[in-house]
């Protein structure tokens, strides 16, 4: 039997390694020489332990299954089904291996599909949004249960929780002067910005302060307001902005 050096990290797990032995030695999957394969398997597990590879626990677990099968096969009276047919102790393992092969194939298929799919290019999201200036109820892009739960993590691991709510629910005062400065600063960096977008998720007090500042600045001619079709949203812009752009 030819021998090979195997790159251990190439295996996705113990089933993968078993399959490798079976294929390499052209073994009959329904008549796996369990003793031989257990022996080989164990030597790889020892090697894995030595180089401290991740996931060695899964391999050790499989090794114990193999040893269990080997032991059962040495018993004089194998287990049998109701009608007396003896049950091959290797049966479940074989089923698992074959099942696993199916999913490996499916994974390879998915990968091909993924590659091929990514030869197709769509319009960049930004462009598509530009073209539409969308409105109406948004479609949530991150509405997955996983994200919902992940957000709990930050809540439940933060130190702030245990504090007295009377102190944590402090009201912060927002001044119109500060808001005016913030708008000026912003318009220095960008020609215009959407008021709603800029203050989304901000406390009410801050939004009111900004709104008052905008009114004041419009009156002074320091800024102009651009109104797109939706009346509830508006852009704040430098006075020299081309309204149509």
């Amino acid at each position: 039997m030819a021998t090979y050096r195997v790159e251990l990290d190439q295996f996705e797990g113990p089933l993968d390694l078993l399959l490798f032995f079976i294929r390499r030695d052209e073994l009959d999957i329904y008549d796996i020489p369990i003793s031989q394969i257990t022996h080989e398997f164990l030597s790889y597990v020892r090697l894995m332990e030595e180089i401290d590879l991740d996931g060695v626990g899964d391999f050790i677990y499989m090794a114990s299954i193999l040893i269990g099968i080997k032991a059962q096969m040495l018993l004089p009276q194998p287990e049998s089904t109701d009608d007396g047919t003896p049950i091959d102790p290797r049966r479940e393992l074989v089923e698992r291996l074959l099942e696993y092969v199916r999913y490996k194939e499916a994974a390879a298929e998915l990968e091909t599909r993924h590659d091929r799919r990514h030869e197709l290019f769509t319009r960049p999201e930004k462009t598509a949004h530009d073209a539409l200036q969308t409105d109406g109820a948004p479609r949530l892009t991150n509405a997955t249960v996983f994200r919902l739960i992940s957000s709990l993590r930050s809540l439940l691991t933060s130190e702030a929780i245990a504090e007295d709510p009377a102190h944590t629910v402090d009201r912060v005062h927002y001044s119109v002067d500060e808001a005016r400065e913030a708008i000026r600063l912003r318009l220095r960096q960008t020609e215009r910005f959407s008021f709603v977008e800029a203050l989304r998720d901000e406390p009410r007090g801050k939004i009111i302060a900004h709104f008052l500042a905008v009114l004041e600045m419009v009156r002074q001619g320091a800024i102009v307001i651009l109104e797109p079709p939706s009346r509830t949203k508006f852009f704040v812009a430098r006075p020299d902005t081309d309204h149509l752009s």
Partner: protein
Amino acid sequence: MDVRPTSEYTESERRLHQIVEALIFAAADPLPPKRIAEVVHEVRGQAPELGAIEDAVKRLNERYAAGQHGVQIERWAGGFRMTTAHAVAPYLKAFRTQRHQRSLSRSLMETLAVVAYRQPTTKPEVDYVRGVDAGYALRKLMGLDLIDVVGRSDAIGRPLLYGTTEEFLVAFGLDTADDLPDLRSIEELLDDPAFDEERAELMLLRELPVQQRPSDGPDPSANGVAAADGPPQTDEDAGPDEATGKAA
């Protein structure tokens, strides 16, 4: 109906038309002909004439017009940009109400999580768990139809009770609020050593001492026994209200 049949062009010309069309379609900004030439050069090792690119665009527009297509190519700011045809503008305007993509901010997601797990719950409770005033986030979530007022609490001042909506279930792909992972599952899901199940239980499942709050944190004796461990309920028919009722 094409101005000239496609067959009058050489294969190489037709290929260039195809490339030009695809690049203009996929570009984020008006695409200068020079950039198209660069891309072709990069792939083929040879750049087309800029004139040939201009011709390609002209030809494409002829075909769009002759074939009554819904798109066209405009020349803006020195580059080419694919847009919809003028003739279909009313439909595009009607389409503008398309739900645009939006992701929930961290604070909204946190608030939503608290409401989902504590429902029916009050604003003071949510404030307490999050450590900040939740008024804005609650209003925002109501605006998004993810939560709604589901009643009034019997507590002093009869504060409003909030709960999740059908829309919440649809958005998160769940059949019932009961399908949300329980605490044990959450812990497994996150696999984060910093995740403190006791604290989670305290925050999510037990009655919070918000109204007349004893000075040193929640009183475990009040309801700690009931909360024990594991899922708040195992009765699969228990609706969200009932489930939370039990847990509280």
